[in-house]
């Protein structure tokens, strides 16, 4: 790939131990083998962070990689992927963030940024094109995200076009599922990238750039960009996302009976109708908000006046947050959900894992396994709004029970002796789709390299529309196809919502007129397969195999008690056999030698 079209051909490497930074060329062949974004992250993590590295040690790295379309007029190109070894799962991990920070990095003239080492004391980094400064963040440390963002912005002269990614107290205090926040309402949310950043004593990264992003064929990019923007606006999916954001899903998933409820014991939340997208639009939405270069605006600006007559203005909450902190904790009040979401946003931790931690202790409290003595005196019953808010604050501050829950589901449930109630795979909390109501999601959760993560392959949409959600047959193929498709989307680093209006053909065309290189669908799919196998190998080298591709007993043995998915469990073994077979992996879930040879990955297998 030419270094001047689409990609910049280089990355910036900053070592916090030595304080040095340098530019590294990116081998042009890597774009063809790994596409960009998530794929390039897999390549660099495998090459530079051996499996035995301590996630919160100086040897771990934060590998931020843009995709080849980032910063161009092709809409929705704003996602940037961070790849790292996760303190939450102790495995391979990646997380994508939208907003404006990723494209700004591209405008500094770099496709990616690798943060290495550990600063002696708190610092933040400023990047102005190729000028890097590492400055003291001693006076900023301890501040909540909004205040910290203000302090960093003031320190760089107040320029509002500077894009800042940062951590809050949760990242500083190494909450295992702390986020990196970019803007106030976009996060590298899952897997604890914020804790890795905190472990490096790195508070924030402020970026401003003025480098051009060139494309191979400007006239065609202009033309196609305009067409895709129109297509997205006119698509059914685009319109629904514009109107209700991700909250459009509440109605569909709850009515189908797989919206996780009260710590995953049920799949239908009887008060869910209060939280449907149309209710949100009528009751609390006052505006819409977009990421860079996206015409949809699925972000929802919300406003309420609280019971105490306070004005409360924010962006969100999103569907996952409303499920994890809402139905999953038995809560249906907008005021509570907005406040709960804001606590997570301001301390900087993942709403999904936080929700699963709180619901776990709520179930334990209701069943008498935990008492007021264990919960710092908080009545942790399902539906107790104040209990949710208090517990979230405690997680952010790492106080009392919050300090235990900050360690994540595995460790917290061990300490509290409630392992059976911890709903995770590989230590990562499940998000809101109960796999008993869409069996493909069971494969997504069980085989994800970063633990239970829905965006690895959101099969439930296809399963709902084809009426096959309870079937086992054919799910291996479905899972593989969705995983491949998402590996391409995440590596081009396009927002997944763009799938509503950008066809695969148009994506290929966009890639070719931006980069000047024709990538056909076969080579894209091969790259996707290579990426998924490389992620798998990282974990296999850690000693993981089929034994860790698990789901909690609840999903395997307890049937859903009510709703449209009533009576179902997950038949995991049959699903895994099918999927491994389709992937060309052995029955232990390890890629075969032939497969690795075919994908030119043999050298990465220990």
């Amino acid at each position, binding site marked *: 790939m030419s270094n001047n079209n689409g990609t910049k051909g280089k990355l910036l490497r900053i070592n916090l131990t030595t304080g040095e930074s340098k530019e590294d060329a990116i081998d042009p062949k890597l774009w063809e083998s790994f596409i960009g974004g998530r794929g390039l992250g897999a390549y660099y993590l495998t090459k530079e962070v051996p499996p035995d590295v301590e996630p919160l040690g100086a040897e771990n790295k934060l590998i931020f990689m843009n995709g080849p379309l980032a910063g161009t007029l092709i809409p929705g190109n704003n996602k940037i992927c961070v790849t790292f070894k996760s303190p939450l799962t102790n495995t391979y991990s990646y997380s994508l963030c939208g907003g*404006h920070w990723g494209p700004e990095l591209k405008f500094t003239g770099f496709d990616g940024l690798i943060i290495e080492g550990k600063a002696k004391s708190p610092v933040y980094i400023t990047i102005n094109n190729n000028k890097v400064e590492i400055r003291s963040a001693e006076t900023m440390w301890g501040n909540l995200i909004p205040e910290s963002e203000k302090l960093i912005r003031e320190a760089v002269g107040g320029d509002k076009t500077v894009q800042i990614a940062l951590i809050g107290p949760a990242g500083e205090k190494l909450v295992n599922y702390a986020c990196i926040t970019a803007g106030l309402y976009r996060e590298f949310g899952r897997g604890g990238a914020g804790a890795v950043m905190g472990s490096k004593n790195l508070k924030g990264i402020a970026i401003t750039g*003025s*480098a051009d992003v060139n494309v191979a064929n400007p006239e065609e990019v202009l033309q196609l960009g305009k067409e895709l923007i129109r297509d997205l606006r006119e698509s059914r999916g685009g319109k629904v996302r514009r109107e209700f954001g991700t909250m459009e899903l509440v109605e569909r998933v709850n009515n189908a009976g797989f919206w996780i409820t009260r710590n995953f014991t049920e799949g239908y939340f009887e008060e869910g109708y209060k939280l449907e997208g149309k209710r949100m639009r009528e009751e609390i939405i006052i*505006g819409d908000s977009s990421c*860079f270069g996206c015409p949809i*605006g699925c972000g929802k600006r919300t406003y309420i006046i609280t019971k105490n007559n306070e004005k409360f203005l*924010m962006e969100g909450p999103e569907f996952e947050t409303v499920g994890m902190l809402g139905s999953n904790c038995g809560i249906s009040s907008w005021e509570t959900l907005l406040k709960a979401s804001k606590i997570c946003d301001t301390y900087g931790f993942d709403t999904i894992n936080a929700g699963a931690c709180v619901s776990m202790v709520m179930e334990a409290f209701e069943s008498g396994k935990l008492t007021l003595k264990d919960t710092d005196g908080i009545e942790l019953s399902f539906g107790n709004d104040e209990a949710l808010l208090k517990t979230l604050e405690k997680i952010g501050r790492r106080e009392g029970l919050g300090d235990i829950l900050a360690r994540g589901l595995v460790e917290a449930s061990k300490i509290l002796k409630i392992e059976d109630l911890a709903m995770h795979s590989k230590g990562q909390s499940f998000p809101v789709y109960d796999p008993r109501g869409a069996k493909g999601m069971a494969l997504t959760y069980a085989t994800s390299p970063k633990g239970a993560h829905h965006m690895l392959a959101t099969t439930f949409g296809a399963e709902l529309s084809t009426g096959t959600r309870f079937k086992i047959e054919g799910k291996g193929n479905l899972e593989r196809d969705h995983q491949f498709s998402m590996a391409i989307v995440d590596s081009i680093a396009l927002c997944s919502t763009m799938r509503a209006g950008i066809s695969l053909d148009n994506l290929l065309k966009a890639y070719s007129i931006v980069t000047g290189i024709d990538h056909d669908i076969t080579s894209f799919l091969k790259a996707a397969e290579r990426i998924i196998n490389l992620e798998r190998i990282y974990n296999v080298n850690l000693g993981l195999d089929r034994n860790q591709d698990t789901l909690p007993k609840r999903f395997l043995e307890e049937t859903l008690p009510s709703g449209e998915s009533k009576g179902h469990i997950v038949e995991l073994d049959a699903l895994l056999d099918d999927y491994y077979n389709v992937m060309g992996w052995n029955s232990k879930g390890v890629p075969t030698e032939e497969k690795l040879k075919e994908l030119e990955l043999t050298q990465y297998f220990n």
Partner: protein
Amino acid sequence: MNYKTLKFEPKKCIGCRLCEQMCVMTHFKVTNPKKSRIRIIRDDENQLDSAIYCHSCVDAKCIEACEFDALSRDSETNAILVSEEDCVGCKKCIEECPYDHPVMHPSEEYILICDLCEGNPACVEICPENAITIGEGN
């Protein structure tokens, strides 16, 4: 006198910055927000996006301030045109503009001011929300 000028409604803006992208793509065939003649500023705290753009003032302080005769008025579109050869990048026009609009080209020694794309602004064409429009000013 009536004339055409850009108009912006902050409440309609979703902050996608496609206007910036189109502006630069149209003028320079590349993307680079620092070369855009319209700039969108997000205020997360107040949940608003605002625009910095040329208001094509009747009584244009920028033209008055320029000591190098680098700025002139396009009689047809009413846009303020920059002569790249005459502009020395002294930034007097930036100081005098009541809307903070002119911006230095990031790598050349001349100023960027909205030229209204000969009457059909690219930002207006692309804005998915009609937050930026062109209409009668006075």
